[in-house]
């Protein structure tokens, strides 16, 4: 299991293959499920120029570790990788990566969604958007439902 916060752009696909090659052996796993969340240039009917992701250092990592650990246990995962941006983010940049590995597809599908939904509802991150129309900054008040 690996959790990481990044203040720079990252390539999720390179992260996945790099992590897999380091942590898993060929033939060991039979499934991998991946979720990548990317910043849009629009939200709630407005054009968004950029975003700032605030977090609670110490608690954010702790909460992510706890929820990934619980999902690994429940779904009998072989490995899990979570990378999340903090700080300034621009449209088109990836914000979050969740990748999980298991013997069969059900565990990977279930765990990937479970981790992502738990992250969305409990990990202490807050988004502040800067709009294109010079009207200033605004906090995103809540996440959209995942199902």
């Amino acid at each position, binding site marked *: 299991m690996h959790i990481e916060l990044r203040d720079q752009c990252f390539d999720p696909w390179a992260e996945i293959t790099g992590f897999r090659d380091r942590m898993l052996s060929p033939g060991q796993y039979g499934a991998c499920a991946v979720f990548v*969340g990317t910043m849009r240039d629009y939200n709630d009917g407005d054009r968004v120029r950029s975003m700032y*992701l*605030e*977090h*609670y250092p*110490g*608690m954010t990592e*702790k*909460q992510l570790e706890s929820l990934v650990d619980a999902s690994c246990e429940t779904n009998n995962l072989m490995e899990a990788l979570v990378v*999340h941006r903090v700080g300034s983010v621009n449209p088109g940049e990836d*914000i*979050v990566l969740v990748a999980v590995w298991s013997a069969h597809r059900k565990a990977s599908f279930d765990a990937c969604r479970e981790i*992502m939904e738990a*992250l*969305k*509802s*409990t*990990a*202490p*991150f*807050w*988004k*502040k958007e800067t709009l294109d129309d010079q009207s200033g900054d605004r*906090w*995103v*008040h*809540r*996440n959209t439902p995942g199902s």
Partner: protein
Amino acid sequence: MTINVRFFASLRERIGVARTEIEADSVNDVRDVWLAVSHQPVDEEMLVALNRNYASLDHTVTDGDEVAFFPPVTGG
């Protein structure tokens, strides 16, 4: 008793500080800490952490605790 208090995101902006400290022997739980530092009624949507774990307003606080108040989270 010293309690370290932190605020995040829109709540930090509303209160006007990121962190503060209170010295009070009359504080028993997280709700008392909120009232002592904010002088505002409890916000129904507000989330609370005690020593970096989610907690409720009824959680008892002790000397040296870190209490954080923040709005609903919006990561991912």
